[in-house]
């Protein structure tokens, strides 16, 4: 019966772990819907979180959305849901509608941002968000604020100069920041072996004077455990941690990709067996926190939410073309002198 207490031993109530599961299911449901909409020609682009929901949920639950800043990357759908976004906000983004709180439909889906929720606005060039999170952590340290900053990125992105420079600076000043690498084995078509020669991305932390931890990213609870420790350390002045969650991207890189050219169907099928949602579901069933009926209801609720969000987002008005030139600089009336 050690299994029974696993989430409780981590300090998660039954409600919390169910909530974690619910977010993962919701993220998957939104994601799958986007693919359908794309294949139906209704939205031009999808970039997916499938396979990485467990890592994101584990991370999200270890953070405090009421104060911690996050600088997510384009796959972090599950994380931003935990941070207060909804099926509706993300479908609005997918349709490029102005009600989308991420960017008013200006950016591709998956380009998150929301000032009120401390989701730092992101872009497409990979890795640029890493120093941003470090900068937020610097502000926390300078002002003595209690928040930590969190930034996520792929393993391919850990090769960019911006990762190195930002991690180095964070290490010197022991800033309250967590570097969260979602290692899904590929950077588009390029496998890990052609991207980096070290065994783990986490090994790089030693070069910056802080700890690197490898965690099974398909196990949401294990990610939670590791992240919780990292967040506590950061909050207590212990400095940064590089957490590497080993995951797998279960679908092509994006709706523009065809992954059959660079990986076998067998490999993908094999990876599907470790689907983080299936794993958490099995755990919850096993420990009796979830029943099959509850699961069905939860999935139906997610589907309902997504259906409603789709309908809303699809019919929402498009941006007025006259808004094209708005918000390049502060508009007189909106500027507060800063």
């Amino acid at each position, binding site marked *: 019966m050690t299994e029974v207490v696993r989430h409780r031993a981590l300090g998660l109530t039954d409600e919390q772990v169910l909530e974690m599961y619910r977010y993962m299911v919701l993220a998957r449901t939104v994601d799958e819907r986007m693919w359908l909409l794309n294949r139906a020609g209704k939205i*031009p*682009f999808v970039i997916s979180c499938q396979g990485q929901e467990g890592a994101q949920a584990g991370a999200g639950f270890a953070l405090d959305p009421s104060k911690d800043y996050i600088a997510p990357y384009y796959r972090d759908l599950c994380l931003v849901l935990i941070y207060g976004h909804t099926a509706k906000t993300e479908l609005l983004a997918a349709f*490029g*509608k*102005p009600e989308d709180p991420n*960017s*008013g*439909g*200006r*950016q*591709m889906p998956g*380009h998150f941002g929301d000032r009120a929720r401390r989701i730092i606005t992101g*872009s*497409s*060039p*990979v890795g640029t968000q890493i120093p941003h999170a470090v900068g937020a952590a610097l502000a926390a340290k300078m002002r003595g604020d209690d928040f930590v900053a969190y930034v996520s990125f792929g393993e*391919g*992105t850990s*090769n*960019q*100069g*911006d990762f190195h420079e930002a991690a180095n600076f964070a290490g010197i000043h022991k800033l309250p920041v967590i570097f969260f690498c979602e290692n899904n084995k590929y*950077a*588009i*078509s*390029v496998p890990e072996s*052609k*991207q*980096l020669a070290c065994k783990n991305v986490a090994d790089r932390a030693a070069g910056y004077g802080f700890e690197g931890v490898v965690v099974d990213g398909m196990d949401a609870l294990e990610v939670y455990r590791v992240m919780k420790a990292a967040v506590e350390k950061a909050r207590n002045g212990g400095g940064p941690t590089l957490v590497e969650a080993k995951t797998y991207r279960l679908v092509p890189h994006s709706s*523009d*990709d065809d992954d059959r*050219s*660079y990986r076998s169907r067998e490999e993908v099928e094999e990876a599907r067996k470790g689907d983080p949602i299936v794993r958490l579901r099995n755990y919850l069933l096993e420990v009796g926190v979830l029943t099959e009926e509850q699961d069905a209801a939860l999935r139906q609720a997610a589907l309902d939410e997504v259906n409603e969000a789709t309908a809303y987002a699809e019919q929402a008005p*498009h*941006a*007025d*073309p006259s*808004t*094209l*030139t708005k918000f*390049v600089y502060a508009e007189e009336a909106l500027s507060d002198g800063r």
Partner: protein
Amino acid sequence: MAVKQYIDAIREALQQEMARDERVFVLGEDVGVRGGVFRVTDGLQAQFGEYRVLDFPLTESAIVGVAIGAAAAGMIPVAEIQFADFILPAVNQIISEAAKIRYRSNNDWNCPIVIRAPFGGGVHGALYHSQSMEALFTHVPGLKVVVPSTPEDAKGLLLSAIRDPDPVLFFEHKKLYRSIKGEVPDSPYTTPLGKAAVRREGDDVTVITYGLGVHLALEAAERLESEGITAHVLDLRTLRPLDEEAILAAARRTGKVLIVHEDNKVCGIGAEVSALIGEYALFDLDAPIRRLAGPEVPAMPFSPTLEKAYMLNTDKVASEMRSLARF
């Protein structure tokens, strides 16, 4: 000679030059097994092997920096930047290094690299998969900047770029990849860098443009013909060095100049074209020099209505041409 797509002409140039010269190799993200995210390099790794079509880690500064070093040791690298927008991390290597190597070494070293990058919008690519990056480089002595508008030019200019002993940036408008077809000679040939091409002759208004703009201008010219307005269309082809003679001749031909580009207007290449004319052909002008360009926003949005509002189209070009012709 066969009719080929713009994208196929580029692939053919790469393939033929790699077959002809062992020093030539391609490097970039996803160029190998995947054949490039646009499939420009499709099939090349199968023919030339893993190293001559090299899947590079996601590090643009190193793509260019390693290319520079390989060139120093005698290779002829053709680097692909997956989207022109992502050339920015490599700007230091391009401007501090590639552009200055010959000059700073007093002609001892040179830097025969090509950097290819798809650019431009209208493909729902949003802010970071739609930008025009040419104006960042046209200011920089030591660089050459090329933007082909036709399949024939794409092949001939790319072969010239690869054979050029200095660094060349080669921007391919991604909307042209599969939308534009044309006759392309099968065997290798070069189209000279630094030479513009008159795409259409006319007497009422001159349009100076490049890339996608050439096709918009030609369509617009077609339309205006029925209204009795004939347009002269100059395709710059190379943005650095500019073909000054051709620009001045085209301006003088009609005395009314419209410069068209997708990139935003302020300090775009159109400014230099205009300044050239204002310096050397001022008294041949019958109307102010006009520029039709992208709006002054950071880049085009994803929203379909906003993207459409950003992009040039035949209507916009035709209406500017008409108003200028009637000036």
